[in-house]
């Protein structure tokens, strides 16, 4: 029973996913199937047929392959059906991974243009957005892939990453609509990614490499675990406190609730509620976790000396086990043009290290584990810092005959850092 006969595949399993209050993707797929004046209607009928087939047999029926557009080696996810004998119209159902505007901002005008293009060349099915951050235009024949890309490229969109390459990035809403944002995420995101597009479009890295940009330690784009290079906003100076707003908050929620929900939740016991309901903060003990700022959005704000922490090596299970990004740069100021250039330069240095040193199919977090953090730091030219560890080593299996020289280097660095500190930074007397 194929589209040749004009018949609609029965979908008894999928039909059950049309009930209930949440918007149904099945209803959407059926709308496409029933748009009989459109080129994609037969394709979507067979797609629904194959999906129902999967629901019946509890198995998937897609296989990969090789499809690309002229000039690029990646960005298209090829899908060929293994059940094409039953569902020939959706035999080829490739995805175009397309990089969205930083921060996922759209005008309705632009979204309509995307729909028109995908209605002409594709299946009419779009995912906003995939887990890497791409707009996923799902369902395109091999023949139409180039045409769809050309049309999208003409209105300013570019393909994202796939395979062993730099991947599409994401950044949080940040500066555009969030008072907690500690740097210009759009600028960082676009400066870094657009500088290394060659690594995205022509896959030649040992394995995937992801950057993600979050404006503060709330990490709304999940950078710490879902990226190899996490850029997370932070600040060095004191939390900004409006004591009148603190008092207003205490008056509203009550003193006990304030203590239970804010004061005692501080992970480093840096908060204390004064007798007059103002807040005392031990800023040198604060770890910038964001909790008190999240709860008291009017009273508290990140400080003024803002920048980013950079954590490297986050990934999921395969194959050494899950890794969170590890603190490599506790603070990089991000304010001036030079600061942003420095970030791009550092990103390039890490990419280059990865390209030259990682084994095939090894993420940079695994490379770091394999060679050890001291060798990694030496390779990328970063000095050790106590913020990189939860605690110093507990194992005695290490050769320390140059400990004294290393200690001297540390004291030299501290001297230099103190001299270089920007004026206005309040450092406690030492």
């Amino acid at each position, binding site marked *: 029973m194929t589209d040749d006969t004009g018949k609609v595949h029965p979908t008894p*399993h*999928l039909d*059950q*996913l049309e009930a*209930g*209050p*949440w*918007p149904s*993707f*099945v209803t959407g797929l059926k*709308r496409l199937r029933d748009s009989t004046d459109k080129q994609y209607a037969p394709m979507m009928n067979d797609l629904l047929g194959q*999906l129902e087939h*999967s*629901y019946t*047999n509890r198995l*998937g029926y*897609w296989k990969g392959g090789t499809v690309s*557009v*002229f*000039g690029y080696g990646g960005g298209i996810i090829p899908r060929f059906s293994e059940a094409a004998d039953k569902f020939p119209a959706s035999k080829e*159902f490739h995805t175009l991974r397309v*990089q*969205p505007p930083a*921060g996922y901002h759209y005008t*309705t005008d632009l*979204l*309509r243009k995307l*729909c028109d293009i995908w209605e002409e060349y594709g299946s009419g*099915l*779009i995912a906003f*957005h995939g*887990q890497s951050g791409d707009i996923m235009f*799902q369902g395109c024949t091999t023949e139409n892939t*180039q045409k769809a890309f050309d049309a999208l*490229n003409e209105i300013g*969109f*570019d393909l994202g990453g796939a395979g062993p390459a730099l991947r599409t990035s994401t950044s949080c*809403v940040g500066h555009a*609509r*969030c008072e907690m944002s500690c740097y*210009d995420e759009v600028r960082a*995101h676009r400066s870094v*990614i*657009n500088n290394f*597009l060659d690594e995205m*479009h022509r896959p030649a890295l040992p394995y995937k490499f992801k950057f993600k940009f979050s404006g503060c330690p709330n*990490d709304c784009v999940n950078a*710490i*675990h879902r990226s190899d290079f996490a850029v997370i906003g932070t600040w060095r100076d004191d939390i900004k406190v409006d004591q009148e707003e603190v008092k207003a908050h205490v008056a509203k929620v009550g003193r006990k609730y304030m203590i*239970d929900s804010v004061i005692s939740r*501080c*992970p480093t016991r840096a908060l204390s509620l004064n007798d007059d309901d103002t807040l005392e903060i031990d800023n040198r003990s604060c770890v910038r*976790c*964001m909790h008190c700022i999240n709860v008291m*959005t009017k009273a508290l704000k990140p400080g003024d000396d803002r920048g980013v922490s950079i954590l490297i090596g986050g990934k*999921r299970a*395969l*194959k050494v*086990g899950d890794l969170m990004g590890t603190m490599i740069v506790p603070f990089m100021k991000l304010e001036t043009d030079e600061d942003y250039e420095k970030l791009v330069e550092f990103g390039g240095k890490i990419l280059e290290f990865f390209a030259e040193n990682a084994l*095939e199919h090894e993420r940079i977090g695994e490379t770091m584990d394999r060679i050890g953090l001291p060798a990694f730091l030496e390779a990328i030219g970063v000095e050790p810092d106590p913020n990189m560890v939860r605690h110093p080593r507990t194992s005695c299996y290490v050769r320390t005959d140059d400990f004294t020289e290393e200690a001297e280097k540390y004291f030299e660095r501290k001297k230099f850092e103190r001299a270089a500190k920007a004026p206005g930074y309040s450092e406690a007397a030492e």
Partner: protein
Amino acid sequence: MTEAKATPRRPDEVGVPDPFPLMHPVLRKNYGQWAWHDRPRPGVLHHVAKGGDEVWTVRAGTQRQMDVHTVRKLCDIADEYAEGHVRFTTRSNIEFMVSSFEKVPALIQKLQAEGFPVGGTGNSVSMISHTQGWLHCDIPGTDASGVVKSLMDMLHKEFVAEEMPNRVRITTSCCQVNCGGQGDISINVQYTKPPKINHDLVANVCERPAVVARCPVAAIRPAMVNGKPSLEVDEKKCVCCGACYPPCPPMQINGADSTKLAVWVGGKHSNARSRPTFHKLVVANLPNNPPRWPEVEEVVRKILYAYKENAKDWERMGEWIERIGWPRFFELTGMAFTKHHLDTWVGARHTMNMSTHVHF
């Protein structure tokens, strides 16, 4: 290159598009200049800029995999009831920005009338982040959109309210690669049987040394089977992770009955209060039961409501469990603690209780 034959168009390598021309004008004007925010009601954010400008954002859930008609409907709503600018969140919610609070009620009403739930803000259960599944992935053990649709039907009332102790982030993944990521609750495929090998195809389809290298427990070795070069699996060593399947599709890891689902808890990315954490196993071997996965739904419901009823304000799932202890968690949720909860991977010893701290 003067032949009549059309030369292919060269791509314009524009990279990440510039969002500023697309951004709502109040957001663009106050870029980096926001002062504070509050939430007048679930699903609505109110941001105030240092200069006094205000913007209201109405957040609504979508099905993520959207047909063009749905996208156009959302555009129609944005044009008629909002101001023509939208954005999406990491969890596939759509946001409509308006510069006047007066526009909010009608916008909410219209979204609800068209079937888009308004919510997902503050301490709610937001949309489940999910993957592709049977709809489009080449290695899926289950569907993604269907699992998510089933669960979000159940969770709808928690999406439109802000009644959880803290935000709840749920993820799903259709294989153990876990593209859905970490979550307060994660529903992930967990294979239970070693791959079934089609020895006729291995030599032609798979780069055998790469497949051998991919195995995390060194259970795969080259072998001649029926006179053909192939691969064999030491089934006693195999942990059924499926890592060999993507580079070698003839090593089928999925089976209609052997592909199961596991539920994990306590993952978190935010640094708020406690450090970011990985999710931990609660229950495995749940049946892969389309189209509605009722057994999974039941487990998620039990965990979610045990959390809702017992956690203190601002405790994320993992922080709540940290306080009450795992014995109490298993007791409150009615789940079993087994030998499979004892980690055996690299660093496992650090997950054990090396103290006399116990909960009774």
